[in-house]
């Protein structure tokens, strides 16, 4: 390997060390890194402004991704102060690995499953039970084994006895946004997504909301990561998230 | 008779020549980059002049500023520099490539015998010597029974001994064929041995003409 390469590597290392030092020493400005589920993107971006105006010394930085991927990153030691997950299972993984600051875990919001169709579609379905497999060509859902929204959807459809009848109509998405895209572009007649996703799309309309009894609770747990250098600031944000102001913003984006 | 009157602008000078070639051997001599190959390409139809007239035995190959007969329709044999033998074909396939009928086929057999390459038919170009390649290329160019034969540096890749042999062979072939041969070379000795007429080219113009009566 060339000498230049090593020089660069050393420089980069020094840069990281000095960056780390200055962040630690600075009393005024603290940067809080938040690893958050992609579905929270819009709500959190909105919240950033109002939170920072109340806490002059804290800057929020987000790293959005699927909850599963974020868990892997945190396990590999990626810098992160807070983890906001879209599924209980992923948060459990970190908790079992002792990667969370004890006593900080909290379910800060919840979501609902909704049945959606393209806004130009004339299909009249008023509830999940009303779905008639013979009238639709494609039914878009999340992949039921690995994708959380698909797991919940499977529970719902099994509960109302439509899982098997719909089998050969199903198109499985790799994430909830893909399910949304299939319906938005009119390629799938119906789809099941979170209410928060349906809310931000102006190309779909919500036909029905799934009863909470049909599926396990869709909760969003959040916690401070044990590796954090700023536990107080991180806790402050979690508190804000569960405050009335935080709840109001989340509600605006379709969360419960 | 081949009549060539052409003008063609190249990067650094303009080719402007007038050649009249009877059933003789004409040699174009000149330093490299003096427009020799361009003239051959224009006669073969692989390149077009800016303007001019190219006729062979009353047939118009090119006239005015762009009326050009495609190379396929011209009856021209062309022996390229370094021969351009098809590497993926046997000697037999190379020579027979442009042959259209049985009569021509038997003629190309005869040609191979004359050139002494009959034993090479099943070989590939990379399996034969430089002198053999030269003969194969000659046989290939003549197999289509052209009305004019163009030869671009036909002997430059050969050692001295083979070279003299091949020069004699060219003269013999011309005796047999009796069509215009136009040979490009930069070797003065060779030009004098082969040529009935020699044109000296420099920067696209004919500087001098030498006519021998052999």
């Amino acid at each position, binding site marked *: 390997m060339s000498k230049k390469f090593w020089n660069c590597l050393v420089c980069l290392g020094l840069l990281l060390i000095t960056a780390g030092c200055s962040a630690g020493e600075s009393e005024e400005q603290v940067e809080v890194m938040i690893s958050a589920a992609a579905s929270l993107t819009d709500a959190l971006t909105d919240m950033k402004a109002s939170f920072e105006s109340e806490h002059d010394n804290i800057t929020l930085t987000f790293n959005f991704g699927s909850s*599963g991927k974020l868990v892997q990153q945190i396990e590999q030691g990626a810098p992160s102060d807070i983890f906001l997950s879209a599924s209980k299972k992923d948060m459990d993984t970190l908790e079992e690995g002792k990667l969370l600051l004890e006593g900080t875990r909290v379910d800060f919001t919840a979501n609902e499953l909704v049945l959606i169709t393209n806004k130009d579609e004339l299909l009249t379905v008023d509830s999940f039970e009303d779905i008639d497999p013979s009238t639709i060509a*494609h039914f*878009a859902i999340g*992949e039921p*084994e*690995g*994708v959380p929204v698909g797991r919940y959807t499977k529970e719902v459809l099994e509960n109302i006895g439509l899982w098997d009848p719909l089998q050969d109509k*199903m*198109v*499985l*998405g*790799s994430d909830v946004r*893909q399910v949304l*895209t*299939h319906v938005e*572009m*009119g*390629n*799938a007649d119906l789809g099941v997504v979170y209410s928060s996703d349906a809310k931000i799309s102006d190309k779909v309309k919500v036909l029905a909301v799934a009863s909470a009894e049909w599926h396990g609770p869709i909760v969003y747990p959040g916690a401070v990561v044990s590796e954090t250098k700023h536990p107080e600031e991180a806790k402050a944000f979690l508190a804000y998230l569960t405050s009335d102001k935080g709840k109001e913003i989340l509600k605006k984006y379709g969360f419960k | 008779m081949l009549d060539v009157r052409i003008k063609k602008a190249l990067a650094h000078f303009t080719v402007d020549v007038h050649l009249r070639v009877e059933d003789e051997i004409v040699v174009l001599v000149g330093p490299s980059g003096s427009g020799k190959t361009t003239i051959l390409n224009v006669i*073969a*139809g*692989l390149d077009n002049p800016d303007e001019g007239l190219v006729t062979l035995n009353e047939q118009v190959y090119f006239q005015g500023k762009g009326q050009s007969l*495609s*190379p*396929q*329709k*011209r009856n*021209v*044999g*062309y022996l*390229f*520099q*370094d*021969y*351009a*033998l*098809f*590497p*993926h074909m046997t000697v037999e396939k190379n020579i027979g*490539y*442009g042959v*259209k009928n049985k009569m021509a086929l038997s003629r190309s057999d005869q040609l191979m015998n004359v050139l002494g390459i009959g034993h090479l038919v099943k070989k*590939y*170009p*990379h399996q034969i010597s430089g002198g053999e*390649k030269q003969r194969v290329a000659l046989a*290939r*160019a003549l*197999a*289509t029974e052209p009305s004019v034969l163009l030869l671009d540096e036909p002997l430059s890749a050969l050692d001295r001994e083979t070279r003299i042999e091949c020069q004699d062979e060219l003269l013999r072939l011309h005796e047999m064929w009796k069509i215009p041969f136009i040979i490009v070379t930069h070797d003065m000795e060779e030009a004098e041995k082969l040529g009935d007429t020699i044109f000296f080219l420099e920067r696209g113009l004919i500087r001098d003409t030498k006519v021998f009566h052999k």
Partner: protein
Amino acid sequence: MSTTDYTPLMLSLKIAGISTVIVFITGVFFAHLLSRKQFFGKSVIESLFLLPLVLPPTVVGFGLLILFGKKGWIGSLLIEWFDVQIVFTWIGAVIASVVVSFPLMYQSASAAFGSLDSRMQNAARTMGASEWKVFRTITFPLAWPGLLAGLVLSFARGLGEFGATLMLAGYIPGKTDTIPMAIYFAVESGQMEKATFWVVIIVALGFSTIMWLNWWSRRNMERYKNGHT
């Protein structure tokens, strides 16, 4: 895994195979066409051809949805005229595969044609060969090593195609689940055994095609090496 479902293997081979045939013909056609012509805007067209190489798969997939979706520009016409639906079918997977592997074929073919000695073709022309005969008997066979490399690369790329395919063809078990999709969803759902099985299959497939290409080209280089006189 009690019974292994081999649909992904068959489907992958079918899709990559058909895609490779299409890509080979179109890639060779366009590369040959453009290799013989110089015109204004040629580099624009070439850049356009190579674009899928630099675009993220999801962008390509989204573009394909806009074109071939039920309400897409081409997709809606296909449904109206021929009652053929592209989206959520294996044909969609073929189209996605064609689009992402075309640049590889075009690039290989264009390099192969570009490196040919034009005197070979000219020699054939002076011997009266039509342009089609020149292509068939001279250009194509001489460019074949390069064309074959492009063919194998396109096949390998088609075999591994995932992102754009997932968007256009969707994931429908038994209908559009190619090997890469089977791997992706097996990993997502923690079925590591199943994922490993398919990874081994696709690695073996990709590895053996490329090994074969290397072996073949080394063997043939010997023949061609001295061939260009």
